[in-house]
């Protein structure tokens, strides 16, 4: 794969693009997921900030192994949707079903345990800790180790530590980041920090991975590598990915179902092809593309 150019890769991906099938709830999911329970279902989701309807009547479904995209102009409410899904904010309307489970009443940590993990628009690492520790913290709810045995260094402590160490390195190696294991997270190059955030999120063993502008600040070749990684995550971890991105090469390249937000409302839903040719989306978001997309 690595000796393919970026555009060759995109072309390959488009060729093998899955067929999207409509659901009764006016959403679409990949054909392969149609008989599975969707990992995410938002119904009439909405939130207001002092009168401002930041997200309004948001209905969206993500299939079990779908890569979904959320796009829209700046300030449209995309990040706010992520904050609603991860319970940073509590919705003022509607509901969020995570793998069939209603998230009402959960807090951020509970949402994580229920299977949603995320990265942040502004990188949020545990920057004074080592890369390995960052991943181990991601494993917090996966490998249990209690306080008392740790303080007294009982055998159960050593066993858990060994397990965590191995799992953390496994995850890091998946992203070729093993070499960084002992580095302080805050000192990593920007791109590596973004990747580490993804590794950490994956460590929580999520069913749905939310990526908020993962390609921001990356140049095209770095972006292409990121696209590969996102696909690999979907394929090897068998989870769904939902991402926010302004880089249309990336969005159109890997997303299967896309929703477009404007002023908190969905103005279009569909496959990349449908979205790209939607006049409303072009008007509000894409602009006239004078170059090839």
């Amino acid at each position, binding site marked *: 794969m690595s000796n393919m150019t970026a555009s060759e890769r995109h072309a390959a991906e488009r060729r093998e693009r899955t067929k999207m099938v409509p659901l009764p709830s006016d959403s679409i999911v990949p054909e392969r997921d149609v008989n599975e329970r969707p990992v995410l279902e938002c119904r009439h989701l909405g939130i207001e900030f002092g009168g401002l309807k930041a997200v309004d009547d948001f209905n969206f479904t993500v299939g079990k192994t779908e890569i979904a995209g959320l796009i829209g102009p700046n300030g449209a409410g995309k*990040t706010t949707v992520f*904050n609603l899904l991860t319970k*940073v904010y509590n919705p003022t309307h509607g509901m969020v079903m995570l793998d069939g489970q209603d998230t009402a009443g959960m807090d951020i940590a509970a949402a994580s345990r229920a299977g949603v993990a995320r990265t*942040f*628009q502004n990188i949020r690492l545990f920057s004074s800790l080592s890369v390995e520790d960052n991943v181990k913290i991601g494993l917090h709810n996966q490998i249990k180790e209690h306080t008392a045995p740790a303080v007294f260094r009982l055998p159960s402590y050593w066993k858990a530590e060994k397990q965590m160490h191995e799992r953390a390195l496994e995850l890091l190696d998946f992203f070729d980041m093993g070499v960084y294991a002992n580095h302080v997270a805050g000192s990593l190059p920007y791109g590596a920090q973004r990747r580490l955030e993804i590794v950490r999120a994956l460590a929580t063993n999520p069913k749905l991975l939310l990526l908020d502008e993962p390609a921001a600040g990356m140049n095209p070749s770095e972006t292409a590598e990121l696209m590969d990684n996102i696909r690999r995550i979907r394929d090897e971890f068998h989870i769904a990915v939902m991402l926010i991105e302004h880089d249309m090469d990336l969005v159109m390249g890997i997303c299967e179902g896309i929703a477009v937000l404007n002023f908190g409302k969905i103005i279009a839903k569909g496959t990349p092809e449908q979205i790209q040719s939607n006049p409303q989306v072009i008007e509000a978001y894409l602009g006239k593309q004078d170059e090839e997309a």
Partner: protein
Amino acid sequence: MGFLTNLINGLSLGSVYAIIALGYTMVYGIAKMLNFAHGDIIMVGGYVCFCAVNYLGLPTGVGVLLSIVACTVLGIVIERLAYKPLRNAPSLDVLITAIGVSYFLQNAALLIWGSDTKSFPSVVNLPSVSLFDGQLVVSAITIVTVIAGVVVMVGLTMFTGKTRMGKAMRACSEDRGAATLMGINVNSTISLTFAIGSGLAAVAGVLMCSAYPTLIPTTGSLPGIKAFTAAVIGGIGSIPGAFVGGLVLGVIEIFAKAYVGTQLADAIVFGVLIVVLLVKPSGLLGKTVREKV
């Protein structure tokens, strides 16, 4: 009548706290540091005025002016020598430096003025106001302190909200680097903040020592802490908040002493702080700043 007397006493104490708290809030709001030496500048203000009047035989008014000038200069010098080198240091290092400065001022005062108590002559030599056939005596110093508190509060609010320099201060308080890029001289702005804060400390020192005429090298520490508490009750960083917090604290302290007992007064005062913060985590008039994710 007992109630009224206590209320008046409370307002008197409260307005002293308020003026100190205004200086605290000012420095905290702009320089983002807990200036634990603030209380000790009050003490220096008291001593300078004391010396001017008692040793140099100057008129009280001149003594007060001299004290304001001396404290302003002292504030600038301290900022330049001790705090400026720590502009980019972790906030706890700055806190420890402030504590160092506080020790320094106390012990320097000890060497210069000795440890024995000085009885401070009131700077307000007006007759007290006697109401209800002398049942209620309001001393002139109380009236002057309350008025001074209001004047300072209004003045500071106008200054930071309306003037160019005031806005520059707010910009520095948020992001010094960005403020520099706007063409703001961050160093002189912060110096100005300390100058104003220290000048206020001098006013507070003179008024406090007039109302509670005792002067030792540690005179400023406890009122400093109480005033800081007042600033937090009012919402630290908020100028009207500092004033309100000061008054509230003073009245509660006197009422607690009068109706519960002198022993538990401090516990009650600090208890009120805790209750206020639990109900309103950013103080009575403070703004809740939510971190956007």
